């Protein structure tokens, strides 16, 4: 199992599952839903926060939140 936190800069993945207890509702509203694509655009110093493209919305989230979003890597 891997989460967004395990992705490297530039990697693309598909969201497979989210921890519904800990993920803020706002993130879902922004399109962070199972089945949607996510791309890590940039990782800040010390890996936090992360700059992502989720479902065409550009977002910054913290590492702790990224760990709660499980993904499957898309092989190019």
């Amino acid at each position: 199992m891997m989460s967004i936190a395990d992705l490297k800069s530039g990697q693309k993945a598909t969201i497979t599952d989210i921890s519904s207890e800990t993920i803020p509702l706002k993130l879902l509203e922004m399109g962070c839903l199972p089945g949607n694509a996510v791309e890590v655009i940039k990782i800040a110093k010390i890996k936090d926060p992360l700059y992502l493209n989720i479902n065409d919305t550009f977002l910054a989230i913290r590492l702790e939140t990224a760990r709660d979003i499980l993904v499957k890597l898309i092989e190019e």
Partner: protein
Amino acid sequence: MMRQINVALVGNPNTGKTSVFNNLTGLNQKVGNYPGITVEKKEGVAKLNRVLKAHIIDLPGTYSLNASSLDENIVIELLLNKNDKDYPDVVVVVSDVENLKRNLLLFTQIKDLGIPTILAINMADRMERKGISLDVPKLEKQLKTKIALISARKKTGFDKLKTLITNYKQLSTEACCNASRVDTEYFGNLKKTFPNQNTYKLWLVITQDVNFGNLDRNQIKNKAKSFEPKSDSELKRLQQKEIIARYTFINDTLKSTMTKDINMAKGLRASLDRLLMHRIWGYLIFAVILLLIFQVIYDWVAYPMDFIDESFAHFSEWTRNTLPEGQFTKLIAEGIIPGIGGIVIFIPQIAFLFFFISILEESGYMSRVVFLTDKIMKKFGLSGKSIVPLVSGTACAIPAVMASRNIENWKERLITILVIPFTTCSARLPVYLIIIALVIPDKSFLGVNYQGLVLLLLYFIGFGMAVFSAWLLHKVMKTSHKTYFVVEMPNYKMPIAKNVLITVLDKTKSFVFGAGKIILAISIILWVLASYGPNEKFKNAENIVKTEVKTENLVLTPEELDTKISSYKLRHSYIGYMGKGIEPVVQPLGYDWKIGIAVISSFARREVFVGTLATIYSVGNENEETIKKRMSKEVNPVFGGKLFNLASGISLLLFYAFAMQCMSTLAVVRRETNTWKWPILQLVFMTSFAYIVSLIAYQILK
């Protein structure tokens, strides 16, 4: 007779909602506060045709009707409360063509409430360039609404939008994506229990912490619980199901109406991000931008400020010489005109600061700063989002405290609010500038000017103290709330001049008419206190002094005699007695009773300090000298020598750097935190800290 309808503008942040508002209303707008709370309320009027006007309310940007910050609460409260006088006849949802998918989430929620809703798709001029095409008639049919393709930048599509608003009665109020589907049994029971209410509205009332009108939240919750209990986590899961259902509907709708050529995207964003968010260059660029802003606000702005200062001095002089002599003329020349001058002089600074802040916000750069600073700020219990309030705090703590409203986490927000007053606001500047000019030599070492260096140091002390107390609070405060941080990175945009201009005008106006009133009132009160005395000694000052001079056989020039009389009068005025009263408290800091008065009166607002001294000295001495020259001549009554020397000057500077000298900030903090506990803590901590630091500094340096 013109008829007026209410129109609410709703939309995600960064969709250009404010430009749409500015385009519809022009300068026909005003800023106020929502009743009881301090979020700014922007409203304006647009003429639709000869008989119909639209009263337009610009609501804070929100991603959905599930509020996670106070700003967003306002949107829900207005849309749920039919008894609100601003309850909209029609809602215009502003969306950005590039983020249509996400923007439609909010649209379908509002549709569910049964309010006539128009979809305005902004930035339509970019469609071709971005490879997007839309089947508008089909989209209108599926969303059960009317659509206006607009461009706030190119000012196109607004006639169509106005026509749609005019004909709002023809809009369907039917839901396009019914939320009840996610749990038909639960929503069915809800409908049965409250047959006269909109089900989606009930659902929002149950899941939100919203208080409004005559819908009693607890009553609904209890009744809803009586037929089928739902725990909080069940409710949360239902909310998530609702979002998934809405996105499914939106995806299906867009699949058949919108095509997007993915290869056309990217470009500018990627390359600018690479530079502006670089782990070295990113910080350097931010530092240079801050430096530039400070350079403008504290250096270049000095010219218009000096000009305003001198103009008011001349005007005061002119009034004194022109109007018939008497108490009323004195009130105008010594109380009212300097009071107004004390307000007007801040306009250049505030205007420029908000000019820069609004450019940074509009261009999309501010979100990048939030990204860059989050990790650092998090260590001190703050969020990257605290950087905007803290930077705004260099203009004035009041808008800064208000700007903290978009921090969702309560602990981070509270800490931000509590430490903001430490950042050096522009009200401290006049105090700093005059004291620095008096006690720090105007010399340079290796090209570095000492006076400028001290000023810079004071800024660092303020910011350092803010960060340090944030860390302290972070360690002391316990909270069960989990911190979270979700920030949208909007596209880069060229700021629109009109938007920047309107922001600058709004903020300046709210300073002049908000804070300005207090400053003026205090100036007048001070003048009265200095111009009247409680006993005969004040009234007979002239005779008493003359008798004294005669018995002591002193030979005085008429001017010296005048000064002696004025000074005697001042000592026996109301303010003189007040100053004498607090002298024992401020003497260990190196202040005399006159500075004591200024310190006390400037509790209301720091910038009153200089004005008070000006009032005190001009009342005490009719000679027209600049206040600075007058102060440098002042002699310490206890030890002799210059009153404003290095020791007392540094002590004053430190006192003003740390003390909570602002009633308006306390009032705003009280409103934002909804308890007196936090502002009182702020006041006691900051003022005692300031006292102790100044005391130590003076005792060491003297």
